[in-house]
């Protein structure tokens, strides 16, 4: 059976049990290389492109468009040139016979944990090997560690990657102090010290970008590099309608319109994504925490933080990724970021790390 490899349904994030094949970009007989975009898959969270994990010739496409399959299910078979079709048939038959779909309760891979660090209760998800420069992922306002579902496993191939929930968010404690970037960054520092993560590469999205800059400024020994994804704190304005609507809308149909501001293609916002935000907001203390964080950092359409001076004072390398169609924080804010290496992704919105995960992952590692 040498030379025959399976392409299977990926697992993007803790909650993903199945995905729907929405389109193939390659056909049987096409040669593909690892990292090439070969198909689109829609999950309950969001739709995304899938890059081939292997190189070779697509010998057989098993999953048809529109089909919904469990994580790990066979999508296609890659084989070397000249492989007998009977051998491929046998491989597929053998795979299907032995395939066991994941159980909703099953122990399948790393799970998020809630831990106590000095001063904070933090939910985190750690992945990857024990060695290598660690990456710490810091989500934005109202989000949680699952917003890195399309990034974390890829990034963790060769290094430890920790995603955490900021105070007030996800499964972390709901006490946000005064809600400021400084208060939030204290939790990140406490977590990194507790976990022994020096010289880490901090990746922060939106408000999490501002938090990452604050950590790097205050505790330079903890940070060896920064990647800021559509960060807050680098321009005068923000879409206040997004912040207000995120807090105030309690009906799914209303909240959906608010969440659509996050993406360039509104079709990417799924019912489950909306439901997930609603469920978070209903937790005791969550809404008060969001209000405190919003009040401390934003006022109407204005941002209270201006971190541009902090950035020029940093010695660590800084990369910036921004979607050109960001409707929450304008990509024009990148203009003033002295010394940073800036990647503008055309056509992407505010949650560019979810919309264009593969490109953002390459930028983070590049």
């Amino acid at each position: 059976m040498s030379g025959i490899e399976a392409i299977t349904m990926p697992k993007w994030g803790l909650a993903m049990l199945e995905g729907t094949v929405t389109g193939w970009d390659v056909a049987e007989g096409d040669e593909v290389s690892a990292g090439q975009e070969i198909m689109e898959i829609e999950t309950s969270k969001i739709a995304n492109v899938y890059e081939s994990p292997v190189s070779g010739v697509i010998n057989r496409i098993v999953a048809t468009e529109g089909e919904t399959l469990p994580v790990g299910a066979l999508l296609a078979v890659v084989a070397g040139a000249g492989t007998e079709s009977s051998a491929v048939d046998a491989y597929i038959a053998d795979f299907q016979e032995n395939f066991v779909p994941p159980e909703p309760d099953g122990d399948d891979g790393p799970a998020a944990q809630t831990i106590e660090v000095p001063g904070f209760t933090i939910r985190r998800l750690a992945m990857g090997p024990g060695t290598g420069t660690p990456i710490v992922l810091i989500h934005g306002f109202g989000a949680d560690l699952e917003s890195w579902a399309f990034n974390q496993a890829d990034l963790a191939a060769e290094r430890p990657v920790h995603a955490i929930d900021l105070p007030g968010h996800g499964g972390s404690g709901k006490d946000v102090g005064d809600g400021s970037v400084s208060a939030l960054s204290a939790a990140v520092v406490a977590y990194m010290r507790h976990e022994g993560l020096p010289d880490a590469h901090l990746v922060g999205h939106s408000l999490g970008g501002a938090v990452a800059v604050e950590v790097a400024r205050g505790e330079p020994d903890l940070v060896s590099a920064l990647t800021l994804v559509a960060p807050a704190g680098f321009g005068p304005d923000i879409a206040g309608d997004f912040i207000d609507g995120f807090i105030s809308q309690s009906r799914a149909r209303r909240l959906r319109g608010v969440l659509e501001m996050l993406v360039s293609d509104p079709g990417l916002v799924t019912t489950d994504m909306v439901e997930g935000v609603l469920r978070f907001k209903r937790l005791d203390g969550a809404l008060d925490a969001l209000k405190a964080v919003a009040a401390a950092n934003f006022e109407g359409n204005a941002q209270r933080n201006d971190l541009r001076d902090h950035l020029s004072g940093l010695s660590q390398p800084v990369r910036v990724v921004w979607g050109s169609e960001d409707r929450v924080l304008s990509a024009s804010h990148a203009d003033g970021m002295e010394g940073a290496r800036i990647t503008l992704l055309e056509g992407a919105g505010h949650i560019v790390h979810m919309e264009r995960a593969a490109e953002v992952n390459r930028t983070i590692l590049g």
Partner: protein
Amino acid sequence: MPMKSYREAINEALVQEMERDERVILMGEDISGGTGGNGDQDAWGGPLGVTKGLRPKFGPDRVLDTHLAEISFVGAAAGAAATGLRPVVELMFVDFMGVCFDQIFNQAAKFRYMFGGKAVTPMVVRMMYGAGFRAASQHSQCLYPMFTHIPGLKVALPSNAYEAKGLLTQAIRDDDPVMFFEHKMLYDETAEVPDEPYAIPFGEANVTREGDDVTVVAFGRMVNIAGQAADSLAKAGITCTVVDPRTTSPLDTETILETVEETGRLVVVDEAHPRCSMASDIAGLVAENAFGALKAPIRLVTAPHAPVPFSPALEDAYIPSVGKIEDAVRDAMGHGSREAAE
């Protein structure tokens, strides 16, 4: 996210609210079981084990096994609520409401109004309802339309374990009497339920599916049956918006009317009898306020106007089913668009 049963979710809401607020107490027949006897203590935990473990945890002052007389312990709960406690009283089967209805609709429901808004009655009445349990006509009724009729009562119908915990938490924190309907057939159904406390606001419908062709409004257990019908119909190219109002009082009329204006067709699924039901109520609401949006007659899927049968075969035929809902949706679609009819 941990998976929990409807039963566990309700138990967890009770535990967390009792821990949060010492004014929360529980009352009911055999909600612990064995109290006062020489045998096992906490022997039962309610007829289906929902309140098991609470009396050992919170003690006899907060978990009261009552005598077998709803008229007095439901009345006592109303009085306790009016004087500062937050009782959660269990009526076992909603079918027993007849013997304590005065305490609910003439007393608990009226205090706020009769005392000039100066009195509140933060009590919850938990009740099992619904058919499918082979429990015959005196233990299988729905009856939530009767409570919905009465101003001053709030009425909640959780459709799954997540909804059950959040709606019960809200019910306990609410300052008005809340009639909380637990469907017997749902107790072993599981869903993702957060460990943390959370409350689902009353009067905000949940739209469980979004579609273009037909709005299906369903209540309690029927939300799940309607969802199955919608999934099946989607494969045939008919897409439904499924609305779970969550509470019949207050009722989220806005979401119902808004979705009917989008789809132009309405099917209401109600396990209660058809006359003076939620089905007829929603049909009236839409006919009065969104008539111009309707492309087809409204269709109702309900139980018949007959007691729940004891025969298992007849009981199964009595309950609204996936097939009956699909037929109603197809019927609504069959009338075509108004444009086509002109």
